[in-house]
């Protein structure tokens, strides 16, 4: 039995997008971060909810690791990554006493924190809330889908890399989406080829074509391929704005295209 959604802290959030993958290390956090940066560049207010409790990557990617989380009347105040307060972030990373401290929790405790993240963070007015998830189809994913269901998320971006061992896991993630009634906005193929900076030869380091084939097999849109770019990796390591800093990068057109598809799919205009 589902109670009617109490708007609460998500009342001001226009669109919710989940970023999923059955496979680890394919770039969910990268795509979540770059999507948020690209949407910000399009003038939107974006929140990022990082529900990867064991491996919270996003604080460092936005150069806000170590920041404290404050309380207000409505709950926790998310951390703003810029002065204009156009991107806000909540992550378990902010709640750890030491950065190397391991969160060694079983499922029920993880579920409880995810519920709190959804209901007790004072997001305020947001155009988009991007939810970054850990790999798999388990506690965190069921918790976040169940808790967000009353707020009708826009859907899921499903990230893969081209090779068979990733596609094999991501197929299962698409099955998960179907089973829990979560719409798939589309598949993104990350780490799709590497252009040698010395000779411009393109090598398919992680094979090729798997993402597009997967999207076709599952009958969902294919949103594009993002190539490997050490500048992108470096930007994430150093918390720099890749979208602003590297418009010439081979990864830029693909990332912009994905953001544009979201903007077209779920426009936020003047109301």
């Amino acid at each position, binding site marked *: 039995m589902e109670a009617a959604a109490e708007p609460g802290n998500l009342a001001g959030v226009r669109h919710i997008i989940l970023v999923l993958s059955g496979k680890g290390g394919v770039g969910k956090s990268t795509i979540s971060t770059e999507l948020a940066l690209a949407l910000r560049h399009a003038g939107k207010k974006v929140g990022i909810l990082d529900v990867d409790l064991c491996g919270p990557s996003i604080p460092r990617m936005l150069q806000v690791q170590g920041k404290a989380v404050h309380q207000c009347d409505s709950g926790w105040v998310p951390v703003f990554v810029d002065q204009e307060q156009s991107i806000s972030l909540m992550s378990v990373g902010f709640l750890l006493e030491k950065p190397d401290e391991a969160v060694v929790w079983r499922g029920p405790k993880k579920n409880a924190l995810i519920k709190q993240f959804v209901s007790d963070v004072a997001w305020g007015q947001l155009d988009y809330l991007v939810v970054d998830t850990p790999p798999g189809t388990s506690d965190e994913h069921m918790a976040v889908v169940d808790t967000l269901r009353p707020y009708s998320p826009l859907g899921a971006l499903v990230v893969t890399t081209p090779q068979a061992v990733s596609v094999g*896991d991501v197929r299962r993630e698409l099955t*998960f989406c179907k089973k829990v009634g979560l719409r798939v906005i589309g598949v993104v193929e990350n780490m799709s080829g590497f252009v040698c*900076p010395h000779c411009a*030869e393109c090598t398919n380091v992680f094979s090729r074509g798997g993402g597009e084939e997967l999207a076709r097999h599952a009958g969902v849109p294919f949103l594009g391929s993002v190539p*490997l770019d050490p500048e992108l990796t470096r930007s994430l390591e150093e918390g720099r704005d890749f979208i602003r800093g590297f418009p010439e990068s081979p990864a830029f057109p693909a990332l912009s295209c994905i953001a544009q598809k979201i903007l077209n799919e779920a426009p936020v205009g003047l109301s």
Partner: protein
Amino acid sequence: MEEVPHDCPGVGSAQAGRGASCQGCPNQGLCASGAGAAPDPAIEEIKEKMKTVKHKILVLSGKGGVGKSTFSAHLAHGLAEDENTQVALLDIDICGPSIPKIMGLEGEQVHQSGSGWSPVFLEDNLGVMSVGFLLSSPDDAVIWRGPKKNGMIKQFLRDVDWGEVDYLIVDTPPGTSDEHLSAVQYLAAAHIDGAVIITTPQEVSLQDVRKEISFCHKVKLPVIGVVENMSGFICPKCQKETQIFPPTTGGAEVMCHDLKVPLLGKVPLDPRIVIRFRLKAGYRISLEDSRGRCPACPVYREARHSPPCTRLLSVRVATKDSLFWLKHRIHQPP
């Protein structure tokens, strides 16, 4: 245990069976009686079962996608090159079981016998078990919460008839959660030699791997060493090296020095591994002689001697080095 309420306080908790969320749970009586907090009898059963397994190694990483399964497969093949060494590879990544695909064993089924489940044998001396063998379709998703995953891991350790094994390699999912706690808990009485931890050079991996090392310390699991995977890429055309995943904070070398854990080796990015998966040949690079048709082969063979690549070992050589140091550390007197 069957499905538990979403807000289950945990069977070991002081609130077990007594909390508001316990109302209506089929296990409420069990927990309230304190039976849930008693040691699981399976731990002793697994200890008995593991008496025929000489060495147990967990392959861990805080981070996903760094090559745990690939390295586990390398290790299993490398150890099994000696026909007299019995090797077992157990895949406890319940949601994302990669090992069947990597070993070229997709579609294989597990059989039951009087003495338990039979692993799938790739070679006479190399047996494999994974939840992947229990799924009827590649699209089947295993959407299980923690307690059910734990039950599966318990079954794998207790009910698989491994026989006499020299090395049991346990491939794990990323993170520090149910699967990892269960593996350590169920093997607690059976003595685990230790963990090999896989990382890639960049900080976004290392920050998770430091947590994994902290987890190992917390649960008193010895760290045999760290392997840095995807450590450099040599362009097959111009043969120049690029760090696709740059070690902006010094890579595994600096982390290992800071945390005082051994660095077992560095393995470069090699597209050949990926290509072989796609051909359904499974992964196999012989440690003695890799005569693939990749244009980078001459570079890889000479990697040790050529000046721009002195720090870049070929997959073949790096794995052999890691294997050497791993065996050396396992067999060191206490």
